């Protein structure tokens, strides 16, 4: 159940990202909100703009990217707009009150420094403490993410750790300054399934303990079902459907959401062929002016290709942008 209207930790409105030379916006008018202690999953396939969305919020896109919209971060000490604030102020926030966990811990940890030094650096940078105090905090957070023999691992280099341990170290670093918002971009995609389960349960536990809000970027509907409170489904730069996780799974409205869920092979007994979404995501130059899913949607008609569908409500917090939802109104005949 959605919590009563406490002010969200982050409210994103009309986020749009354009790159020079790309005709269509890579992220086009995306909006969502995430509350304290809650997890919002942004789910979609390659090229849907989910990672660009998270990088835009962190201010980590290349300078050529043109970002517009608002991202109101309302944490202790007043609200700010992450998108319009000066780069220096944003750097003060990053790794501090807003932290990020990336997919590939091997490329996001510095191979030349020990794990302890890297975590301590983040603590020293934001808290103005001594290096010894930073290392003490590093040891604390390594304990927190249940890395065995934390005191020894402080002196380990990233390559000396297994994939799962490295991802724990990344999470420890992200948590080292008690962030109010954690953005995790495919945090378990590179991991084996038993390790993925460990990391997901760890993240859920830590989030419960610290009350941080989390944005989880993923392509995996299984991970969404496992940990999300709310879901935003993205396709070709737009959020096509959003709502509480049970609404999305029990009452999906957008044809893309339905096709995506139907193409996921189930763990239960085989029931028949997998549903498929025909074709592939069009190139930005080939996107239709209306609904971007129109080129692959079996329900699309002339209006879909020409006019952008507005977001409509299908529940208290459940919205979808489709001209034909609910699909039952159409029937199966072409």
């Amino acid at each position, binding site marked *: 159940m959605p919590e009563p209207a406490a002010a969200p930790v982050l409210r994103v409105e009309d986020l749009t990202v354009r790159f020079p030379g790309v005709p269509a916006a890579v992220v086009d008018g995306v909006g969502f909100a995430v509350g304290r202690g809650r997890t919002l999953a942004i789910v979609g396939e390659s090229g849907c703009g989910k990672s660009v969305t998270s990088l835009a919020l962190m201010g980590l896109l290349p300078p050529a990217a043109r970002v517009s919209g608002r991202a109101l971060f309302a944490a202790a000490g007043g609200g700010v707009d992450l998108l319009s604030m000066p780069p220096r102020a944003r750097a003060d926030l990053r790794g501090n009150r807003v932290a990020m966990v990336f997919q590939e811990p091997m490329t996001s940890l510095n191979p030349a420094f020990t794990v302890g030094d890297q975590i301590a650096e983040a603590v020293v940078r934001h808290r103005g403490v001594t290096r010894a105090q930073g290392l003490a905090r590093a040891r604390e957070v390594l304990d927190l993410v249940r890395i065995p023999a934390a005191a020894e691992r402080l002196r380990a280099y990233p390559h000396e750790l297994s994939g799962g341990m490295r991802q724990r170290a990344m999470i420890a670093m992200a948590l080292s300054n008690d962030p109010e918002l954690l953005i995790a971009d495919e945090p378990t995609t590179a991991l084996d399934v038993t390790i993925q389960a460990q990391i997901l349960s760890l993240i859920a536990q830590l989030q419960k303990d610290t009350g941080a809000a989390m944005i989880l970027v993923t392509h995996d509907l*299984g991970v969404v079902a496992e940990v999300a409170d709310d879901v935003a489904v993205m396709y070709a730069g737009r959020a096509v459907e959003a709502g509480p996780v049970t609404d999305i799974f029990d009452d999906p409205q957008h044809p893309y959401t339905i096709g995506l869920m139907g193409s996921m092979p189930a763990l239960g007994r085989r029931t028949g062929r997998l549903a498929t979404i025909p074709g592939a995501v069009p190139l930005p130059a080939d996107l239709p002016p209306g609904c971007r899913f129109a080129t692959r949607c079996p329900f699309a008609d002339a209006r879909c290709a020409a006019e952008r569908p507005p977001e409509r409500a299908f529940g208290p917090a459940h919205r979808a942008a489709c001209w034909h939802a609910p699909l039952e109104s159409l029937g199966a005949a072409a």
Partner: protein
Amino acid sequence: MILSGERPILEAVALTKHFAGRRRLFGRPAAVRAVDGVSLRVRRGETLALVGESGSGKSTLGRLMLDLMPPTAGDVLYAGRNVGALPAAERRALRRELGIVFQDPFASLNPRMSVADIVGEPIWLQGDLSRADRRAEASALLRRVGLRPEHGDRYPHEFSGGQRQRIGIARALASRPKLLLGDEPVSALDVSVQAQVVNLLEDLKAEFGLTLLVVAHGLGVIRHMSDRVAVMYLGQIVELAPVDALFDDPLHPYAQALLASAPNPSPRARKARVLLEGDIPSATRPPPGCRFHTRCPHVRPVCRELQPALEEVAGGGLAAGGRAVACHFWAELAGAGAGARAALPSPAFARRLALFEARSKAAAPAEPAPSRGPAP
């Protein structure tokens, strides 16, 4: 469908592969024991999955069985003949009957060759067709995997990941194989594209009477595609079972843990579960006794010392769909793992998915065309 008395199409007999490990300052380099004494029979016409985590040896076993690398010990039998003992010419001929589809459609196609040449090369190697005939055959293959014949003039970089995987499949089919190894054939693809390729592989299997050996870590894909599953851990098979038996009631503690780790199919099925602690140990020094004992929640003293054999536990012979497990205490532990968590789709989702599929069928040609334009 499959005669139990029939000779297996492919068989591994005590296959072992050790790789030279990192050189140490003193002493001999430690060998990585990637596959350690594995015996396995693949039945004609079945889909057999090798499943396990990184380092379990599943890919190495698949490649050994296709004669793509020499084993350290043990034998591979193809239709009853020992592959390693065959004269070179016969061995080459035999390899044509074994095709492979790789995981990474970006790394496994030569960027300097046109698609028609990539697909035509295995046909050319057979040497008995004219250039025009080869070309026609390559076109037919491209059409069969859902591409258009004129795609043959293009180069791999012009295609999406899913289309490249179709090219890889067409190439694998070009030598008219009897058995196809899919080494993580869909794990690099997006979910919706993955479903297209899974369906294509199943159609081709039926059409050409193929046997499929699938190496994979995605449990959903395995449940969907396979008839039998071999669960591997640190270079050995710990459980071998028909797919439904395994997913409904896994017997080996590792198989139980693996299935319990699979993400939820539904947010309503969330519940606390017992998770494995720690990582898979190094294959250079696998633990003594049962290799899983360092992470097993049911470990007892004997497990640390005595390695359990893969023994048949049910069914009239492994070849007839029985199952085998390598655990000293499987009988006592049966039921300790609940199996994979399944969830029924909600009525609204089921209804709309049916509409989606009915509409797709009505709107599109039989196979999803990768791009616009009528397929001839």
